[in-house]
Protein backbone atom coordinates (compact mmCIF):
# COMPACT_ATOMS: atom_id res chain seq x y z
CA UNK A 1 0.00 0.00 0.00
CA UNK A 2 1.18 3.51 -0.80
CA UNK A 3 1.18 6.16 1.89
CA UNK A 4 -1.56 8.59 0.95
CA UNK A 5 -1.91 11.84 2.84
CA UNK A 6 -4.56 14.48 3.13
CA UNK A 7 -2.54 17.49 2.09
CA UNK A 8 -5.19 20.18 2.53
CA UNK A 9 -8.83 20.82 3.32
CA UNK A 10 -11.04 23.81 2.51
CA UNK A 11 -14.73 24.46 2.99
CA UNK A 12 -17.34 27.20 2.81
CA UNK A 13 -19.28 28.45 5.75
CA UNK A 14 -22.51 26.45 5.74
CA UNK A 15 -25.77 28.36 5.50
CA UNK A 16 -29.46 27.49 5.37
CA UNK A 17 -30.09 29.10 2.03
CA UNK A 18 -27.24 30.26 -0.20
CA UNK A 19 -29.26 32.43 -2.54
CA UNK A 20 -26.44 34.70 -3.58
CA UNK A 21 -24.06 32.16 -5.09
CA UNK A 22 -24.38 29.19 -7.40
CA UNK A 23 -22.64 25.90 -6.72
CA UNK A 24 -19.89 26.93 -9.14
CA UNK A 25 -19.55 30.34 -7.47
CA UNK A 26 -18.90 28.50 -4.19
CA UNK A 27 -16.57 25.92 -5.72
CA UNK A 28 -14.17 28.33 -7.46
CA UNK A 29 -12.59 29.78 -4.29
CA UNK A 30 -12.77 26.55 -2.27
CA UNK A 31 -11.17 24.25 -4.83
CA UNK A 32 -8.53 26.92 -5.44
CA UNK A 33 -7.84 27.25 -1.70
CA UNK A 34 -7.46 23.48 -1.32
CA UNK A 35 -5.05 23.30 -4.23
CA UNK A 36 -2.99 26.30 -3.11
CA UNK A 37 -2.73 25.05 0.45
CA UNK A 38 -1.60 21.61 -0.77
CA UNK A 39 1.46 23.22 -2.33
CA UNK A 40 0.91 21.15 -5.47
CA UNK A 41 0.74 23.29 -8.62
CA UNK A 42 -2.67 22.91 -10.24
CA UNK A 43 -1.35 21.46 -13.53
CA UNK A 44 0.36 18.70 -11.51
CA UNK A 45 -2.85 17.50 -9.81
CA UNK A 46 -3.21 14.07 -11.38
CA UNK A 47 -6.89 13.38 -10.89
CA UNK A 48 -10.08 15.14 -9.88
CA UNK A 49 -13.14 13.41 -8.46
CA UNK A 50 -16.27 14.89 -6.98
CA UNK A 51 -19.50 13.83 -5.34
CA UNK A 52 -22.93 15.39 -5.73
CA UNK A 53 -26.52 14.55 -6.59
CA UNK A 54 -28.30 15.98 -9.58
CA UNK A 55 -31.53 15.81 -7.58
CA UNK A 56 -30.20 18.62 -5.34
CA UNK A 57 -30.07 20.96 -8.35
CA UNK A 58 -33.01 19.41 -10.18
CA UNK A 59 -31.02 19.18 -13.39
CA UNK A 60 -29.67 16.14 -15.12
CA UNK A 61 -25.90 16.34 -15.54
CA UNK A 62 -25.75 19.22 -13.05
CA UNK A 63 -22.51 17.63 -11.85
CA UNK A 64 -20.83 18.39 -15.17
CA UNK A 65 -21.45 22.08 -14.53
CA UNK A 66 -19.31 21.85 -11.39
CA UNK A 67 -16.28 21.19 -13.58
CA UNK A 68 -16.67 24.80 -14.79
CA UNK A 69 -15.14 25.82 -11.47
CA UNK A 70 -11.89 24.03 -12.27
CA UNK A 71 -10.75 25.64 -15.49
CA UNK A 72 -10.52 22.15 -16.96
CA UNK A 73 -8.75 23.19 -20.11
CA UNK A 74 -6.88 21.48 -21.61
CA UNK A 75 -9.20 18.64 -20.46
CA UNK A 76 -8.26 17.01 -17.16
CA UNK A 77 -8.57 13.43 -15.86
CA UNK A 78 -11.81 13.69 -13.95
CA UNK A 79 -14.58 11.54 -12.50
CA UNK A 80 -17.77 11.88 -10.49
CA UNK A 81 -19.79 9.81 -8.04
CA UNK A 82 -23.49 10.39 -7.45
CA UNK A 83 -22.70 10.03 -3.76
CA UNK A 84 -21.22 12.00 -0.89
CA UNK A 85 -17.77 13.40 -1.63
CA UNK A 86 -16.32 10.87 0.84
CA UNK A 87 -16.87 8.20 -1.81
CA UNK A 88 -15.19 10.45 -4.37
CA UNK A 89 -12.24 10.51 -1.99
CA UNK A 90 -12.32 6.71 -1.90
CA UNK A 91 -12.19 6.56 -5.71
CA UNK A 92 -9.27 8.99 -5.78
CA UNK A 93 -7.50 6.98 -3.07
CA UNK A 94 -7.88 3.81 -5.16
CA UNK A 95 -6.54 5.64 -8.21
CA UNK A 96 -3.48 6.71 -6.20
CA UNK A 97 -3.05 3.18 -4.78
CA UNK A 98 -3.02 1.87 -8.35
CA UNK A 99 0.00 4.07 -8.95
CA UNK A 100 -1.68 5.98 -11.76
CA UNK A 101 -1.36 9.38 -10.08
CA UNK A 102 0.37 10.96 -7.07
CA UNK A 103 -2.23 13.57 -6.23
CA UNK A 104 -5.94 14.24 -6.51
CA UNK A 105 -8.43 17.00 -5.89
CA UNK A 106 -11.63 15.74 -4.26
CA UNK A 107 -14.70 17.81 -3.58
CA UNK A 108 -18.40 17.62 -2.89
CA UNK A 109 -21.16 20.17 -3.03
CA UNK A 110 -24.83 20.68 -2.44
CA UNK A 111 -27.34 23.48 -2.51
CA UNK A 112 -30.18 21.44 -1.04
CA UNK A 113 -32.12 24.56 -0.12
CA UNK A 114 -33.38 24.95 -3.68
CA UNK A 115 -35.54 21.85 -3.37
CA UNK A 116 -37.54 20.19 -0.63
CA UNK A 117 -34.77 18.01 0.75
CA UNK A 118 -36.96 16.00 3.08
CA UNK A 119 -39.08 14.87 0.13
CA UNK A 120 -36.29 14.70 -2.44
CA UNK A 121 -34.62 12.04 -0.30
CA UNK A 122 -37.54 9.74 -1.14
CA UNK A 123 -35.84 9.19 -4.50
CA UNK A 124 -33.04 7.20 -2.84
CA UNK A 125 -35.51 4.47 -1.87
CA UNK A 126 -36.46 1.25 -3.56
CA UNK A 127 -38.83 2.65 -6.21
CA UNK A 128 -41.16 -0.38 -6.15
CA UNK A 129 -42.28 -0.98 -2.59
CA UNK A 130 -41.02 2.00 -0.55
CA UNK A 131 -40.76 5.02 -2.84
CA UNK A 132 -44.46 5.09 -3.80
CA UNK A 133 -45.37 5.41 -0.11
CA UNK A 134 -43.88 8.92 -0.08
CA UNK A 135 -41.55 8.01 2.77
CA UNK A 136 -39.47 11.12 3.55
CA UNK A 137 -36.03 11.61 5.13
CA UNK A 138 -37.27 12.43 8.63
CA UNK A 139 -39.85 9.63 8.71
CA UNK A 140 -37.22 7.07 7.69
CA UNK A 141 -34.94 8.23 10.50
CA UNK A 142 -37.86 8.26 12.95
CA UNK A 143 -38.51 4.55 12.29
CA UNK A 144 -34.93 3.89 13.32
CA UNK A 145 -35.11 6.14 16.38
CA UNK A 146 -38.27 4.37 17.59
CA UNK A 147 -36.58 1.00 17.19
CA UNK A 148 -33.69 2.20 19.39
CA UNK A 149 -36.04 3.65 22.01
CA UNK A 150 -38.10 0.46 22.11
CA UNK A 151 -34.93 -1.60 22.49
CA UNK A 152 -33.94 0.54 25.48
CA UNK A 153 -30.69 1.52 23.79
CA UNK A 154 -31.34 5.25 24.08
CA UNK A 155 -33.78 7.73 25.61
CA UNK A 156 -35.24 10.89 24.14
CA UNK A 157 -33.29 12.77 26.81
CA UNK A 158 -30.03 11.20 25.65
CA UNK A 159 -30.88 12.10 22.06
CA UNK A 160 -31.34 15.72 23.13
CA UNK A 161 -28.04 15.58 25.04
CA UNK A 162 -26.27 14.48 21.87
CA UNK A 163 -27.74 17.43 19.95
CA UNK A 164 -26.82 19.82 22.76
CA UNK A 165 -23.23 18.56 22.95
CA UNK A 166 -22.62 18.72 19.18
CA UNK A 167 -24.04 22.23 18.86
CA UNK A 168 -22.15 23.47 21.90
CA UNK A 169 -18.86 22.14 20.52
CA UNK A 170 -19.73 23.68 17.15
CA UNK A 171 -19.48 27.15 18.70
CA UNK A 172 -15.74 26.80 18.11
CA UNK A 173 -16.26 25.86 14.46
CA UNK A 174 -16.46 29.06 12.41
CA UNK A 175 -18.18 27.36 9.46
CA UNK A 176 -20.88 25.56 11.46
CA UNK A 177 -24.49 26.56 10.93
CA UNK A 178 -26.44 25.61 14.06
CA UNK A 179 -24.43 26.39 17.18
CA UNK A 180 -25.06 27.52 20.72
CA UNK A 181 -25.97 26.52 24.21
CA UNK A 182 -29.26 24.69 24.37
CA UNK A 183 -31.03 23.18 27.36
CA UNK A 184 -32.16 19.58 27.24
CA UNK A 185 -35.33 20.27 29.22
CA UNK A 186 -36.38 23.04 26.85
CA UNK A 187 -35.65 20.95 23.80
CA UNK A 188 -37.74 18.09 25.15
CA UNK A 189 -40.66 20.49 25.59
CA UNK A 190 -40.69 21.12 21.83
CA UNK A 191 -43.21 19.28 19.64
CA UNK A 192 -42.27 16.32 17.46
CA UNK A 193 -41.71 16.82 13.75
CA UNK A 194 -42.20 13.12 13.12
CA UNK A 195 -42.49 11.31 16.43
CA UNK A 196 -40.14 10.37 18.07
CA UNK A 197 -37.93 13.00 16.38
CA UNK A 198 -37.99 16.65 17.34
CA UNK A 199 -36.34 19.44 15.42
CA UNK A 200 -33.14 19.23 17.47
CA UNK A 201 -32.75 15.54 16.57
CA UNK A 202 -32.61 16.42 12.87
CA UNK A 203 -29.75 17.94 10.88
CA UNK A 204 -30.06 21.43 9.47
CA UNK A 205 -30.48 21.87 5.73
CA UNK A 206 -27.11 23.26 4.71
CA UNK A 207 -25.75 24.73 1.51
CA UNK A 208 -22.02 24.56 0.95
CA UNK A 209 -19.00 22.85 -0.55
CA UNK A 210 -15.81 21.27 0.74
CA UNK A 211 -12.61 20.07 -0.91
CA UNK A 212 -9.61 17.90 -0.05
CA UNK A 213 -6.33 17.34 -1.84
CA UNK A 214 -4.76 13.89 -1.53
CA UNK A 215 -1.04 13.41 -2.01
CA UNK A 216 1.36 10.47 -2.32
CA UNK A 217 5.06 10.08 -3.03
CA UNK A 218 6.87 13.33 -3.79
CA UNK A 219 3.59 15.27 -3.60
CA UNK A 220 3.49 14.78 0.18
CA UNK A 221 4.65 17.54 2.50
CA UNK A 222 4.54 20.49 0.12
CA UNK A 223 1.57 22.22 1.72
CA UNK A 224 1.11 24.70 4.53
CA UNK A 225 0.02 22.09 7.08
CA UNK A 226 1.38 18.78 8.25
CA UNK A 227 0.29 15.81 6.12
CA UNK A 228 -2.23 13.48 7.72
CA UNK A 229 -2.07 9.91 6.49
CA UNK A 230 -4.96 7.64 5.53
CA UNK A 231 -4.00 4.44 7.36
CA UNK A 232 -7.11 2.55 6.32
CA UNK A 233 -10.32 3.18 4.44
CA UNK A 234 -13.26 0.91 3.65
CA UNK A 235 -16.95 1.18 2.86
CA UNK A 236 -19.77 -1.34 3.23
CA UNK A 237 -23.50 -1.45 2.70
CA UNK A 238 -26.61 -2.93 4.30
CA UNK A 239 -29.89 -3.89 2.61
CA UNK A 240 -32.03 -1.10 1.21
CA UNK A 241 -35.15 -2.75 2.65
CA UNK A 242 -35.54 -1.17 6.07
CA UNK A 243 -37.70 -4.07 7.21
CA UNK A 244 -35.02 -6.67 6.55
CA UNK A 245 -32.51 -4.85 8.77
CA UNK A 246 -32.12 -4.56 12.52
CA UNK A 247 -32.15 -0.77 12.54
CA UNK A 248 -30.63 -0.59 16.03
CA UNK A 249 -27.23 -1.73 14.79
CA UNK A 250 -24.99 -0.97 11.83
CA UNK A 251 -23.25 -4.11 10.56
CA UNK A 252 -21.83 -2.23 7.56
CA UNK A 253 -20.13 0.35 9.80
CA UNK A 254 -18.78 -2.43 12.00
CA UNK A 255 -17.31 -4.31 9.07
CA UNK A 256 -15.93 -1.18 7.40
CA UNK A 257 -14.30 -0.22 10.71
CA UNK A 258 -12.70 -3.65 11.05
CA UNK A 259 -11.43 -3.61 7.45
CA UNK A 260 -10.09 -0.07 7.84
CA UNK A 261 -8.20 -1.08 10.98
CA UNK A 262 -9.86 1.24 13.46
CA UNK A 263 -8.40 -0.60 16.45
CA UNK A 264 -4.94 -1.20 15.03
CA UNK A 265 -3.95 1.78 17.19
CA UNK A 266 -5.45 4.09 19.78
CA UNK A 267 -8.60 5.96 18.76
CA UNK A 268 -8.32 9.44 20.25
CA UNK A 269 -11.32 10.97 18.51
CA UNK A 270 -13.92 10.35 15.84
CA UNK A 271 -15.71 12.57 13.35
CA UNK A 272 -18.98 10.71 12.80
CA UNK A 273 -21.46 11.52 10.07
CA UNK A 274 -24.60 11.03 12.14
CA UNK A 275 -27.20 13.37 10.66
CA UNK A 276 -29.77 12.38 13.28
CA UNK A 277 -29.04 12.44 17.01
CA UNK A 278 -29.93 8.79 17.64
CA UNK A 279 -27.48 7.62 14.97
CA UNK A 280 -24.39 8.69 16.92
CA UNK A 281 -24.58 5.86 19.53
CA UNK A 282 -25.28 3.30 16.78
CA UNK A 283 -22.03 4.33 15.12
CA UNK A 284 -20.09 4.43 18.39
CA UNK A 285 -21.21 0.89 19.16
CA UNK A 286 -20.43 -0.37 15.65
CA UNK A 287 -16.96 1.17 15.76
CA UNK A 288 -16.27 -0.04 19.28
CA UNK A 289 -15.63 3.48 20.56
CA UNK A 290 -15.32 3.49 24.29
CA UNK A 291 -16.45 6.25 26.58
CA UNK A 292 -13.86 8.97 26.68
CA UNK A 293 -13.26 8.98 22.94
CA UNK A 294 -13.85 12.53 21.76
CA UNK A 295 -16.78 12.54 19.34
CA UNK A 296 -17.17 15.25 16.70
CA UNK A 297 -14.75 18.02 17.64
CA UNK A 298 -16.26 19.94 14.70
CA UNK A 299 -19.83 19.64 15.96
CA UNK A 300 -20.68 17.04 13.34
CA UNK A 301 -23.63 16.86 10.99
CA UNK A 302 -26.11 18.16 13.58
CA UNK A 303 -24.29 21.50 13.35
CA UNK A 304 -24.05 21.53 9.55
CA UNK A 305 -25.12 18.85 7.09
CA UNK A 306 -24.23 19.91 3.55
CA UNK A 307 -25.93 17.08 1.68
CA UNK A 308 -23.45 15.23 -0.56
CA UNK A 309 -20.34 16.61 1.14
CA UNK A 310 -21.03 16.26 4.88
CA UNK A 311 -19.14 12.94 4.83
CA UNK A 312 -16.12 14.37 3.03
CA UNK A 313 -16.23 17.24 5.50
CA UNK A 314 -15.92 14.73 8.37
CA UNK A 315 -12.70 13.44 6.80
CA UNK A 316 -11.43 16.97 6.25
CA UNK A 317 -12.30 18.05 9.78
CA UNK A 318 -10.62 14.97 11.26
CA UNK A 319 -7.48 15.62 9.22
CA UNK A 320 -7.46 19.26 10.32
CA UNK A 321 -7.79 18.17 13.95
CA UNK A 322 -4.70 16.00 13.62
CA UNK A 323 -2.75 18.49 11.48
CA UNK A 324 -3.32 21.14 14.16
CA UNK A 325 -1.64 18.83 16.68
CA UNK A 326 -4.77 18.24 18.76
CA UNK A 327 -4.58 14.48 18.30
CA UNK A 328 -2.31 11.88 16.79
CA UNK A 329 -4.81 9.33 15.49
CA UNK A 330 -8.53 9.34 14.87
CA UNK A 331 -11.27 8.16 12.58
CA UNK A 332 -13.69 9.77 10.18
CA UNK A 333 -16.97 8.28 9.02
CA UNK A 334 -19.40 9.06 6.21
CA UNK A 335 -22.88 7.72 5.62
CA UNK A 336 -25.36 7.54 2.79
CA UNK A 337 -28.78 6.03 2.25
CA UNK A 338 -31.73 5.64 4.61
CA UNK A 339 -31.03 4.86 8.29
CA UNK A 340 -27.24 4.60 7.93
CA UNK A 341 -27.50 2.15 5.04
CA UNK A 342 -24.03 2.65 3.59
CA UNK A 343 -20.99 3.58 5.61
CA UNK A 344 -17.39 4.56 4.97
CA UNK A 345 -14.72 4.52 7.66
CA UNK A 346 -11.35 6.23 7.30
CA UNK A 347 -8.49 5.91 9.79
CA UNK A 348 -6.25 8.98 9.94
CA UNK A 349 -2.88 9.46 11.59
CA UNK A 350 -0.29 12.21 11.83
CA UNK A 351 3.40 11.77 11.06
Amino acid sequence: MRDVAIASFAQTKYVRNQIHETEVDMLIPITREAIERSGIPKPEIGFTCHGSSDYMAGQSFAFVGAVDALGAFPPIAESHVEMDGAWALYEAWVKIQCGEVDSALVFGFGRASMGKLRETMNLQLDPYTMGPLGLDAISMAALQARALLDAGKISEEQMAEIAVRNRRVAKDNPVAQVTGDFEVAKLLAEPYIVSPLRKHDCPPISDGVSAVVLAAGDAIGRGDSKPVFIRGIDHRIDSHQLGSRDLTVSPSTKLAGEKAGVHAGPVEFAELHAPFSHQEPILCEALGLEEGVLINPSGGALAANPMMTAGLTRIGEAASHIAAGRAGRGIAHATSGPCLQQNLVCVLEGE
Partner: protein
Amino acid sequence: MSDSDRIESIVTPTRTEYDYTPGPSAQRSLRALAEGRLIGETCPSCNQVYYPPSGTCARCGVATEGEVEIADKGTVTTYAIVRVPSDNIDLELPYCTAHILLDGSDIPFFGLIQECVWDEVRIGMRVEAVWLPESEWGPGAENIKYFRPTGEPDVPFEQFKEHI
Protein backbone atom coordinates in the same frame (compact mmCIF):
# COMPACT_ATOMS: atom_id res chain seq x y z
CA MET B 1 -53.59 -17.42 -13.56
CA SER B 2 -52.44 -17.12 -17.12
CA ASP B 3 -49.16 -15.41 -17.92
CA SER B 4 -50.94 -12.59 -19.67
CA ASP B 5 -52.62 -11.65 -16.40
CA ARG B 6 -49.32 -11.01 -14.65
CA ILE B 7 -48.31 -7.52 -13.63
CA GLU B 8 -45.06 -7.10 -15.55
CA SER B 9 -44.43 -3.41 -14.92
CA ILE B 10 -45.60 -0.57 -12.76
CA VAL B 11 -45.68 3.18 -13.25
CA THR B 12 -43.97 5.12 -10.47
CA PRO B 13 -44.55 8.86 -10.69
CA THR B 14 -41.84 11.08 -9.25
CA ARG B 15 -42.09 14.78 -8.54
CA THR B 16 -39.54 17.14 -7.03
CA GLU B 17 -40.06 20.84 -6.59
CA TYR B 18 -37.45 23.56 -6.55
CA ASP B 19 -37.20 27.28 -6.09
CA TYR B 20 -34.34 28.49 -8.24
CA THR B 21 -32.28 31.53 -7.47
CA PRO B 22 -29.67 32.29 -10.11
CA GLY B 23 -26.24 33.54 -9.15
CA PRO B 24 -25.27 37.22 -9.20
CA SER B 25 -24.20 37.25 -12.86
CA ALA B 26 -27.43 35.71 -14.09
CA GLN B 27 -29.37 38.07 -11.80
CA ARG B 28 -27.75 41.07 -13.49
CA SER B 29 -28.28 39.81 -17.02
CA LEU B 30 -31.91 38.81 -16.37
CA ARG B 31 -32.67 42.25 -14.92
CA ALA B 32 -31.09 43.86 -17.98
CA LEU B 33 -33.26 41.68 -20.23
CA ALA B 34 -36.31 43.16 -18.53
CA GLU B 35 -35.04 46.53 -19.82
CA GLY B 36 -34.41 45.16 -23.30
CA ARG B 37 -30.63 45.01 -22.89
CA LEU B 38 -28.22 42.11 -23.25
CA ILE B 39 -25.41 42.30 -20.65
CA GLY B 40 -22.50 39.86 -20.86
CA GLU B 41 -19.42 39.39 -18.68
CA THR B 42 -15.70 39.09 -19.43
CA CYS B 43 -13.16 36.57 -18.20
CA PRO B 44 -10.35 38.55 -16.53
CA SER B 45 -7.91 35.81 -17.52
CA CYS B 46 -8.61 35.09 -21.21
CA ASN B 47 -10.83 38.11 -22.04
CA GLN B 48 -13.59 35.97 -23.56
CA VAL B 49 -17.00 37.63 -23.36
CA TYR B 50 -19.83 35.36 -22.27
CA TYR B 51 -23.52 35.80 -23.00
CA PRO B 52 -25.59 34.72 -21.20
CA PRO B 53 -23.12 34.96 -18.30
CA SER B 54 -23.08 31.99 -15.89
CA GLY B 55 -20.58 33.85 -13.73
CA THR B 56 -17.71 31.55 -14.63
CA CYS B 57 -15.18 31.12 -17.39
CA ALA B 58 -15.12 27.33 -17.64
CA ARG B 59 -11.89 27.46 -19.61
CA CYS B 60 -10.00 29.33 -16.90
CA GLY B 61 -12.00 28.39 -13.80
CA VAL B 62 -12.36 31.99 -12.68
CA ALA B 63 -15.32 34.28 -12.03
CA THR B 64 -16.26 36.56 -14.91
CA GLU B 65 -16.50 40.32 -14.38
CA GLY B 66 -17.81 43.60 -15.73
CA GLU B 67 -20.87 44.48 -17.74
CA VAL B 68 -20.48 44.26 -21.51
CA GLU B 69 -23.28 45.41 -23.80
CA ILE B 70 -24.07 42.69 -26.32
CA ALA B 71 -25.91 43.45 -29.56
CA ASP B 72 -29.25 41.81 -30.30
CA LYS B 73 -27.99 40.79 -33.72
CA GLY B 74 -25.37 38.36 -34.81
CA THR B 75 -24.20 35.57 -37.09
CA VAL B 76 -25.51 32.01 -37.41
CA THR B 77 -22.67 29.62 -36.52
CA THR B 78 -24.71 26.44 -36.85
CA TYR B 79 -28.37 25.45 -37.07
CA ALA B 80 -30.77 22.53 -37.07
CA ILE B 81 -34.11 21.89 -38.72
CA VAL B 82 -36.51 20.36 -36.21
CA ARG B 83 -39.05 17.94 -37.64
CA VAL B 84 -40.29 16.22 -34.49
CA PRO B 85 -43.02 17.68 -32.29
CA SER B 86 -42.51 18.32 -28.58
CA ASP B 87 -45.22 18.71 -25.95
CA ASN B 88 -43.93 22.05 -24.70
CA ILE B 89 -43.05 23.71 -28.02
CA ASP B 90 -45.92 25.24 -29.92
CA LEU B 91 -44.38 25.82 -33.34
CA GLU B 92 -45.30 24.69 -36.80
CA LEU B 93 -43.00 21.94 -38.09
CA PRO B 94 -40.41 22.05 -39.42
CA TYR B 95 -38.72 24.98 -37.71
CA CYS B 96 -35.16 26.17 -37.39
CA THR B 97 -33.05 26.48 -34.22
CA ALA B 98 -29.61 28.04 -34.38
CA HIS B 99 -26.49 29.02 -32.55
CA ILE B 100 -26.05 32.75 -33.06
CA LEU B 101 -22.80 34.55 -32.30
CA LEU B 102 -24.17 37.86 -31.03
CA ASP B 103 -22.01 40.87 -31.90
CA GLY B 104 -19.81 41.57 -28.87
CA SER B 105 -19.96 38.02 -27.45
CA ASP B 106 -17.43 35.21 -27.88
CA ILE B 107 -19.79 32.27 -27.42
CA PRO B 108 -22.92 31.46 -29.46
CA PHE B 109 -26.42 32.04 -28.12
CA PHE B 110 -29.33 29.69 -28.76
CA GLY B 111 -32.32 31.01 -30.69
CA LEU B 112 -35.10 30.27 -33.16
CA ILE B 113 -34.97 31.61 -36.70
CA GLN B 114 -38.27 32.71 -38.23
CA GLU B 115 -39.59 35.05 -40.92
CA CYS B 116 -37.71 33.17 -43.58
CA VAL B 117 -37.96 29.89 -45.46
CA TRP B 118 -36.27 27.40 -43.20
CA ASP B 119 -34.16 25.85 -45.95
CA GLU B 120 -32.61 29.23 -46.70
CA VAL B 121 -30.97 29.39 -43.27
CA ARG B 122 -27.21 28.98 -43.60
CA ILE B 123 -24.05 29.23 -41.56
CA GLY B 124 -22.73 32.79 -41.71
CA MET B 125 -26.20 34.33 -42.15
CA ARG B 126 -26.80 37.61 -40.30
CA VAL B 127 -29.86 37.68 -38.03
CA GLU B 128 -31.45 40.08 -35.54
CA ALA B 129 -33.69 39.61 -32.52
CA VAL B 130 -37.43 40.16 -32.75
CA TRP B 131 -38.66 41.21 -29.32
CA LEU B 132 -42.02 40.91 -27.64
CA PRO B 133 -43.82 44.24 -27.22
CA GLU B 134 -42.02 46.19 -24.46
CA SER B 135 -45.09 46.02 -22.23
CA GLU B 136 -44.62 42.23 -22.07
CA TRP B 137 -40.92 42.22 -21.12
CA GLY B 138 -39.89 40.35 -18.02
CA PRO B 139 -36.57 39.15 -16.58
CA GLY B 140 -36.26 36.22 -18.97
CA ALA B 141 -35.01 35.12 -22.38
CA GLU B 142 -38.63 34.82 -23.55
CA ASN B 143 -38.49 38.56 -24.31
CA ILE B 144 -36.78 37.61 -27.54
CA LYS B 145 -39.41 35.81 -29.61
CA TYR B 146 -36.99 34.70 -32.31
CA PHE B 147 -34.35 35.94 -34.73
CA ARG B 148 -34.90 36.90 -38.39
CA PRO B 149 -32.54 37.59 -41.28
CA THR B 150 -31.22 41.15 -41.52
CA GLY B 151 -30.44 40.95 -45.23
CA GLU B 152 -26.80 41.93 -44.59
CA PRO B 153 -24.15 40.03 -46.52
CA ASP B 154 -23.08 36.68 -45.00
CA VAL B 155 -20.03 36.64 -42.74
CA PRO B 156 -17.15 34.47 -44.03
CA PHE B 157 -16.54 31.36 -41.89
CA GLU B 158 -12.93 32.45 -41.28
CA GLN B 159 -14.20 35.41 -39.26
CA PHE B 160 -16.05 33.33 -36.65
CA LYS B 161 -14.39 29.93 -36.80
CA GLU B 162 -12.87 30.46 -33.33
CA HIS B 163 -16.32 30.95 -31.83
CA ILE B 164 -18.26 27.84 -32.80
